[in-house]
């Protein structure tokens, strides 16, 4: 294992120290329990957005803490959900009196730990709503599994709900928006190579030089299908087809297209994917009204990409365009 680390057990703590050193005007890092909060939280009268999950997906979620997006992010150990005390303390710290929205990715550990945290917060009189994001179309048989995973749509939901909360919309409206984004967003990912979890020290699965995994999640778990490696255009089709068919996206739909890198994929490759994905969308009759291209929800050093399509409406567009000022996403502010 070759990594820019000092010790596997120090990865999360040292990264948090670095984030705080780099972005002290935007965020504050609290320790034991660990969470990252907006430097100016709590914001009186604003619904507070709290998310979290295992570390290793950076910049999600800590990089999205700041004005116009999250109020707090709770990082767990690498690929391990955070614990209830983290979300409980974070919720208390950022609650500005208008309640707290928990944005949870659909992984068993995340869901259970956020459930316990919400119970604890409600017992203290804090209004909490939870929305579980489950947008991964790679999970075909959701009746017999833990359900679809939460992937790319999470980033879009955090931005759009953050924009809405900034306008002092009530908790029920922000939660409703989050559910709407989840209902209208679909994603699919693939990997060229597995990632290496620091404390494991070796790749989480083996892929031959001429193989790829289609339908991967973001935790180094293998996907549903292992197939022969294809060229970028064909890979883009393999990701776009199930995404388009699932909602389904119809001719005339305005969409936000998000082409994401899994951690070890260079931007130049992401644009090759975006080029083809935009062409497919156009042929399908979609209007790509907004886009996001870059590595925002990653899986450590996995090479690969995911494509997310979100069917937009006017309110979502307004919230997407609203100013955002976070370590990893900023415009208009």
């Amino acid at each position, binding site marked *: 294992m070759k990594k820019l680390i000092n010790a596997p057990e120090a990865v999360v703590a040292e990264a948090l120290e670095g984030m705080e050193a780099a972005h002290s005007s935007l965020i504050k890092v609290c320790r034991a*329990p660990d969470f990252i909060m907006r430097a100016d939280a709590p914001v009186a009268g604003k619904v507070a957005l709290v998310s979290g999950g*295992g570390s290793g997906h950076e910049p999600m979620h800590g990089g999205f803490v700041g004005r116009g997006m999250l109020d707090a992010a709770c990082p*767990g*150990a*690498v*690929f*391990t*959900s*955070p*614990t*209830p*005390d983290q979300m409980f303390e974070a919720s208390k710290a950022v609650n500005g009196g208008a309640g707290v929205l928990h944005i949870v990715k659909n*992984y*068993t*550990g995340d869901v*259970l*730990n956020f*459930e*316990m945290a919400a119970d604890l917060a409600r017992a203290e009189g804090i209004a909490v709503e939870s929305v579980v994001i489950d947008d991964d179309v*790679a*999970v075909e*048989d959701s009746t*017999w*599994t*833990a359900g679809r*995973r939460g992937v790319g749509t999470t980033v879009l939901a955090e931005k759009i709900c953050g924009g809405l909360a900034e306008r002092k919309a009530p908790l029920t409206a922000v939660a409703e928006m989050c559910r709407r984004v989840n209902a209208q967003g679909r994603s699919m990912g693939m990997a060229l190579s597995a990632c290496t*979890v620091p*404390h*494991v020290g070796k790749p*989480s*699965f083996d892929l031959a030089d001429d193989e790829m995994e289609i339908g991967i*999640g973001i*935790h*180094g*778990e*293998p996907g*549903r299908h292992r197939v022969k490696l294809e060229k970028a255009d064909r890979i883009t089709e393999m990701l776009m087809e199930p995404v388009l068919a699932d909602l389904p996206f119809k001719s005339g739909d305005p969409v936000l297209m998000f082409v994401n890198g899994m951690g070890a994929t260079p931007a130049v490759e992401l644009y090759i994917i975006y080029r083809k994905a935009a062409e497919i969308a156009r042929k399908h009759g979609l209007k790509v009204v907004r886009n996001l291209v870059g590595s925002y929800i990653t899986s450590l050093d996995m090479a690969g990409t995911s494509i997310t399509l979100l069917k937009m409406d006017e309110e979502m567009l307004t919230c997407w365009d609203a100013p955002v000022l976070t370590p990893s996403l900023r415009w208009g502010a």
Partner: protein
Amino acid sequence: MADLSTDRMTTWLLEAAADLEQAKAYLTELDAPIGDSDHGVNMARGFAAVRDKLTAAPPADVGTLLKTVAMTLISTVGGASGPLYGTFFLQAAGKAAGKTSLTLAEWTECFEAGLTGLMARGKAQPGEKTMVDALTPALAALKAAAGQPLEQALAAAAAAAEQGMKDTIPMLAHKGRASYLGERSIGHQDPGATSSHLLLRRLAEPAG
């Protein structure tokens, strides 16, 4: 020794912490093909915290002991195992409040409350390739051993958990991250059922 005293239970959990530290690599190895390679590390970290808590301030009764274990696991394990084992010990603690020792019948009652809580939290049933598959036969064995000597009952529970653990190998995972693998989850022993068996085996066989 006819009953499970607070001392015996404390010793169990301290020894289990050592077991889990030793089994860290093994549990990680089981988790890698079907999960996300974190079960061994998470359990070792959680039980190391339990060991530190129990050593610093030994609880006076079994209820306090189990509650301390629960709260420590909930705040240190993470993943799905933290809330699940945490809920098991928390619900078990409720049935042991104020008791300085447990009879076999009382431990069985604690175990049942713990398993019921765990299954509700995880929305899990037997046969889904989870820790429930080790714990459910263990509870059945405890119940079947009612009236028998305590040590015999604990040994039967550990043996039943071991069989349950092995029975997860051919199962198709329906819960947790392994479920996304579909058919590919078959042929692997469930790490959660394995850690459950480790715990119950140590209760039956104190290192002394």
